[in-house]
């Protein structure tokens, strides 16, 4: 491994702490499980349960340790360097594929204005992979308008590929092959990304300061959410996200992550290290690499380049899914991409931490299947347990009542729930102490939001468990989910939509509850927290997609809209008016009508 990528002492300490914490929690949970199971004899099924609870608890504890390591008091502050002259040749890349051109190009107009205001010189290249001809015409129309308004001729470009080989990674690669030598640095954005000129200026300065830095990732804040689900996600990303990311940054050191967008790369490093091959065999495990960003981060590290994440860089934004279905659809793609990483665990020359990151990516989805397996194994173990023997010895006068395992099971449940809740409460405590809650509407509003988010995620957890489990089983059975187009602004879902997409969850929940009720009614109460939300899946899917006022889940960007976001809304509103009056009004099939500026 390259010496400058070797973890420093604090990074090694963080890793050791997180691993120790996870192992201790997992061992404790599996010992409790084994002790509870051994009351009526320890069988093979009990061994499987102990192993499953070991793995699932280790994963939960690992997540919790990120929050604890990233706690505000532990933050290491660094001064942001200033831009040096002459400025490096920089391009802002925006790969798009079947996106709403109005909002996409309005964002570019806002970024362009903000970049100019920050004194940064950068080209902008819109890299279209849009397949539909009519949609592509609308993109060109929007591009022409963008040039007219910004005077961006010769500075802002639009090119469309005729073949979208390699999807997004291939799109970026195609740009570097054709135009890479013209630039030193490339800021990679998504179609729904917004980034302030100040953020881009800071990123360029950081790349100038450290010539071994190959990629710098920012933490994008989610903006523009309107539904209950979207706003809860937006709040969690804004409130908890920075702390978790700080923990991640401290733990990953110079072999950090790439999340595919809202990051800056050194073009020479990327071109020399990140030419992705097509994997042998067919999808889902072969073919193009879906979750390419993590692989590119690993390859940069393999090439000796530092990859860092800095959640302290403000002015980086994206939009998130606005309902459960959009979220699950995105997760299906990520699941396939992450399971594909199993092919790369033994790739030659990777840093051991990169391999560990691949393992984490796989675990993120497989763990739901393990939870489901644990529930099934626990049910089977209970119903197949031998009946209690009150007179174990011959000629015994008084019966011997067997010890119940309620104490161990209750401790286990509290432990698991604690691993989920304590990190969030710790973050809340830290935010109150540092007065960070002011940006989230004050102590009472932020506390209510944290508690409401916990309740909501608890209700939706069984649905997510089934969505993840289904995705894992689909991938393992060889079903390729492809790369469905983003459906941004999909928004409101009715009960009929909820029923259509959630009836299989109702069926699973009803079957599980009925089976348990008939065979082992004593167990029913333990299954209700999982089974009831499954029965209510259609309602939950529809209800959480409904619009929510700004009273709950308030975030700083709603209290004071950042200038680049305000400019975006202003451009959007202006373009929408004239767009509709234009003879070439591109409304058909696009999500323009869904767009409501906040």
């Amino acid at each position, binding site marked *: 491994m390259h010496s400058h990528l070797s973890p420093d002492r604090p990074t090694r300490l963080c890793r050791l702490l997180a691993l120790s914490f996870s192992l201790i929690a997992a061992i404790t949970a599996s010992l409790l499980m084994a002790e509870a199971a051994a009351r009526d004899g320890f069988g093979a099924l009990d061994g499987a349960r102990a192993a499953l609870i070991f793995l699932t608890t280790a994963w939960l504890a690992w997540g919790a340790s990120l929050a604890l390591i990233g706690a505000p008091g532990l933050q290491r502050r660094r001064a942001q360097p200033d831009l040096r002259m002459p400025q490096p040749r920089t*391009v802002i890349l925006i790969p798009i594929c079947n996106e709403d051109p109005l909002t996409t190009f309005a964002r570019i107009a806002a970024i362009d204005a903000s970049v100019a205001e920050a004194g940064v010189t950068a*080209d902008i*290249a819109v890299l279209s992979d849009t397949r539909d*001809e*009519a949609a592509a*015409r*609308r993109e*060109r*129309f929007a591009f*022409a*308008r963008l*040039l*007219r308004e910004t005077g961006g*001729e*010769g500075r802002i*470009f*639009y*090119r469309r590929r005729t073949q979208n080989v390699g999807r997004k990674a291939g799109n970026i*690669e195609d*740009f*570097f*092959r*054709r*135009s*890479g*030598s*013209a*630039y030193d640095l490339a800021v990679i954005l998504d179609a729904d990304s917004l980034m302030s000129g100040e953020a881009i200026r800071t990123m360029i300065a950081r790349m100038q300061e450290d010539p071994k830095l190959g990629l710098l990732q920012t933490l994008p804040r989610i903006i523009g959410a309107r539904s209950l689900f979207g706003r809860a996600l937006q709040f969690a990303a804004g409130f908890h996200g920075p702390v978790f990311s700080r923990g991640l940054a401290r733990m990953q050191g110079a072999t950090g992550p790439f999340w595919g967008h809202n990051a800056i790369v050194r*073009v*020479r490093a990327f*071109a*020399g*290290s*990140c*030419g*992705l*091959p097509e*994997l*042998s065999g067919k999808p889902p495990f072969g073919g193009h690499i879906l979750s390419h960003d993590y*692989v590119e981060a690993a*390859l940069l590290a393999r090439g000796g380049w530092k990859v860092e994440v800095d959640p302290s860089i403000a002015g980086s934004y994206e939009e998130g899914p606005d309902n459960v279905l959009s979220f699950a659809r995105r997760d299906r793609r990520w699941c396939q991409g992450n399971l594909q990483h199993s*092919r*790369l665990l*033994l*790739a*030659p020359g990777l840093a051991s931490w990169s391999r560990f990151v691949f393992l984490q990516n796989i675990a993120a989805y497989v763990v739901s299947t393990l939870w489901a397996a644990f529930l099934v194994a626990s049910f089977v173990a209970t119903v197949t347990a031998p009946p209690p023997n009150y007179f174990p010895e011959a000629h015994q006068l008084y019966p011997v009542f067997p010890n119940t395992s309620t104490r161990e099971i209750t401790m286990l449940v509290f432990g698991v729930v604690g691993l989920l809740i304590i990190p969030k409460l710790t973050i809340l405590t830290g935010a109150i102490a540092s007065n960070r809650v002011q940006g989230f509407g004050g102590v009472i509003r932020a506390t209510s939001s944290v508690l409401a988010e916990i309740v909501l995620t608890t209700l939706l957890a069984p649905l997510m468990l089934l969505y993840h489990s289904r995705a894992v089983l689909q991938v393992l059975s060889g079903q390729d989910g492809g790369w469905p187009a983003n459906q941004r602004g999909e928004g409101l879902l009715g009960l009929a939509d909820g029923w259509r997409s959630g009836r299989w969850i109702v069926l699973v929940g009803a079957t599980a509850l009925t089976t348990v009720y008939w065979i082992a009614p004593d167990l029913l109460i333990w299954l209700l927290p999982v089974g009831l939300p499954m029965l209510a899946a259609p309602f939950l899917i529809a209800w959480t997609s409904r619009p929510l006022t700004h009273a709950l889940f308030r975030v700083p960007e709603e209290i004071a809209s950042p200038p680049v976001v305000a400019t975006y809304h202003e451009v959007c509103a202006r373009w929408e008016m004239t767009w509709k009056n*234009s*003879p*070439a*009004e*591109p*409304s*058909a*099939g696009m999500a323009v009508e869904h767009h409501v500026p906040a």
Partner: protein
Amino acid sequence: MDQRLNAKDFEDALPCDAPDSGPLRWAPPEAPLAMQKQVLETRTSWADLALVGRLFLSRRKA
């Protein structure tokens, strides 16, 4: 398909008639850069494993 946006509408929308705009540039500058294809898959096969096994056994015999 959006039939309302035909080629003429699109040409009308272009800012080509603006003074001194010249021909519209769509593509970024041509400046090729080689992207090095990376090796990610190990070529370990059953035959390789059998070879390692045979070597191990022959060493033990010796």
